[in-house]
């Protein structure tokens, strides 16, 4: 009896390589290319073949991929920062100063982390808009839309918990204000906030809690859901861009051509990722992440503003009772957002930017309506209408809550019905119009909060504020 021999025991180098990379590189034919994608850990997040029209850059704008790139940059720089930072009120701010003055490339690494985090909020939001406007959430992708909404919330939570860590004035008060929103949730709110802060006010326990959330719990949850999200994209495939007349965008005939992921998709992704990384590094070389004076619990700066992605919410709070500004309106908005893909949808609109010709006009109508209504209402509420003063005997929950909320709700419902009647829009197009109306309103509120609110949160012109 002889032992069965390995065919090539002596070729060690070759054997090690093959145990890592199973397929020939570079692959010789399409079959080989598909096998590399299937058998490679990173590439296997892709299907082995993709529909050619979906490669069109101006369809996806690379926004999903860019989000992943930013998450990767955040993970790398974040772990680096962990080595020079201690989450304790006594040391946190000192560590920030040391990071900026003593650590080699400390400021640069912090800048990359800071800007990537902020950019991720914008990019994830734009990605959501892209998918909405091209109807990419249609069956079977409904649940992936819901996962996406969850991811957007996690991204905001990651930014919010990271916000506190430098322990400067901005951080301290932004988090005080942000976490106080929670205490308006009926019954459990107060307890929830105390739980999150580890006590009644922002303090040492808050910093420890937020650090744990920021470096472990949120990133792990995010990575898990992101993997699920991408896996679903692979299984469900991308929606295919269509022109207004129903023909397929980027294809000669209506026959969808499929091409191998390697190299057609992968090469585009690599080039795009390299260009974007270059731009982010350049930006981070020139623009420093802000750092204000050390946190001082005795003194709120004036104006004390929340992080910029919460400024829309903070602006709402200036106009509505907190139960509405902080809870009811955001919860309704989020609920409606999550239910978007379960609404009736005109199937011929999938893959068409803004659904149809009328849909495009309705999108413009929604944007214009918001541009007129929001500044008008904000100015009216600031200078003319003062419901709590006009109705002094009624609790502010009604005078400053139910009444303005019902008024705004009626306006939106009236707008929806109006669009359907006057412009003969389908329900699908009318909903698109309302969506644009609400999104533009939210963006406007954010802009007003950032650029038009100065000392004492009074309305001012941008050059007096910034």
């Amino acid at each position: 009896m002889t032992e069965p021999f390995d065919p090539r025991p002596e070729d060690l180098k070759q054997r090690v390589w093959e145990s890592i990379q199973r397929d020939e590189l570079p692959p010789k034919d399409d079959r080989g290319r598909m096998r590399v994608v299937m058998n490679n850990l990173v590439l296997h997040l892709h299907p082995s073949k993709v529909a050619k029209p979906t490669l069109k850059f101006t369809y996806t704008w690379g926004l999903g991929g860019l989000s992943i790139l930013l998450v990767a940059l955040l993970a790398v720089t974040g772990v680096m920062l962990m080595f020079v930072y201690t989450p304790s009120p006594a040391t946190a701010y000192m560590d920030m100063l040391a990071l900026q003055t003593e650590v080699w490339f400390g400021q640069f690494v912090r800048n990359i982390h800071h800007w990537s985090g902020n950019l991720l909020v914008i990019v994830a939001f734009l990605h959501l808009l892209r998918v909405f406007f091209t109807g990419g959430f249609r069956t079977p992708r409904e649940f992936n839309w819901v996962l996406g909404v969850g991811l957007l919330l996690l991204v905001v939570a990651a930014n919010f918990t990271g916000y506190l860590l430098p322990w400067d004035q901005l951080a301290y008060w932004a988090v005080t204000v942000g976490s106080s929103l929670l205490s308006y949730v009926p019954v459990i709110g107060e307890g929830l906030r105390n739980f999150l802060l580890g006590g009644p006010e922002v303090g040492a326990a808050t910093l420890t809690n937020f650090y744990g959330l920021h470096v472990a719990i949120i990133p792990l949850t995010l990575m898990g859901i992101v993997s699920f999200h991408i896996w679903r994209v692979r299984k469900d495939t991308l929606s295919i861009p269509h022109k207004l007349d129903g023909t397929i965008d980027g294809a000669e005939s209506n026959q969808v051509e499929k091409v191998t992921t390697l190299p057609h998709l992968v090469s585009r992704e690599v080039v795009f990722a390299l260009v974007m990384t270059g731009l982010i590094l350049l930006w981070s070389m020139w623009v420093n992440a802000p750092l204000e004076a050390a946190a001082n619990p005795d003194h709120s700066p004036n104006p004390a503003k929340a992080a910029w992605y919460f400024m829309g919410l903070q602006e709402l709070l200036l106009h509505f009772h907190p139960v509405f500004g902080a809870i009811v309106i955001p919860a309704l908005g989020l609920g409606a957002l999550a239910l978007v893909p379960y609404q009736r949808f005109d199937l011929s609109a999938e893959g068409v930017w803004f659904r149809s010709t009328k849909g495009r006009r309705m999108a413009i109508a929604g944007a214009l309506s918001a541009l007129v209504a929001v500044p008008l209402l904000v100015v009216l509420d600031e200078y003319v209408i003062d419901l709590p003063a006009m109705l002094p005997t009624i609790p502010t929950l009604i005078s400053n809550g139910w009444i303005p909320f019902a008024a705004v709700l009626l306006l939106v419902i009236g707008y929806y019905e109006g669009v359907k009647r006057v412009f003969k829009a389908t329900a699908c197009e009318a909903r698109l119009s309302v969506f644009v109306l609400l999104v533009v309103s939210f963006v406007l509120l954010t802009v007003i909060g950032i650029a038009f609110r100065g000392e004492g949160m009074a309305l001012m012109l941008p050059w007096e504020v910034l």
Partner: protein
Amino acid sequence: MTDNPSENVTRRDFLKIAWGAAGALALVETGGVVLSFFSPRVAEGEFGGMIEAGLVDSFAPASVTPFTQGRFYLVRMPDGGFVALYRKCTHLGCAVPWNPSENRFVCPCHASAFEMDGQVINAPAPRPLDRFAVIIEGGMVKVDTSTPIQRDHATDADLVYAEVP
């Protein structure tokens, strides 16, 4: 035993329910452990408990004296009554400074304003500034800062007077 199967729980059903209940119980227990592990360890008498603010006569009527450590203002109203106001804005928690020129508290965060006794004069704050219990003993004003007291309206009943000698 009846012949109607819908009135009987079969062995299979019973086991299903039992497993389900055991699973749910395990989940609740795990949740309880996690929640209690992370719950805040609040020390008795936050902010230093009872604070001796000073002698009654050292506070002029119609004056507002900040106590930074205790996070409150000791207010003496024009009629001589005392009230201790927690400096945390009832809107979203900013530290509210006293503005002597306007004779009111004005919150820098969202422009809530409060009268000297804590009453809201300008929304968005939903209720007056919370107060701490004031005790006057032998001419000494003491403030119990362990629990802020919430109120819907600031009333004269909140004021504490030194006993007339």
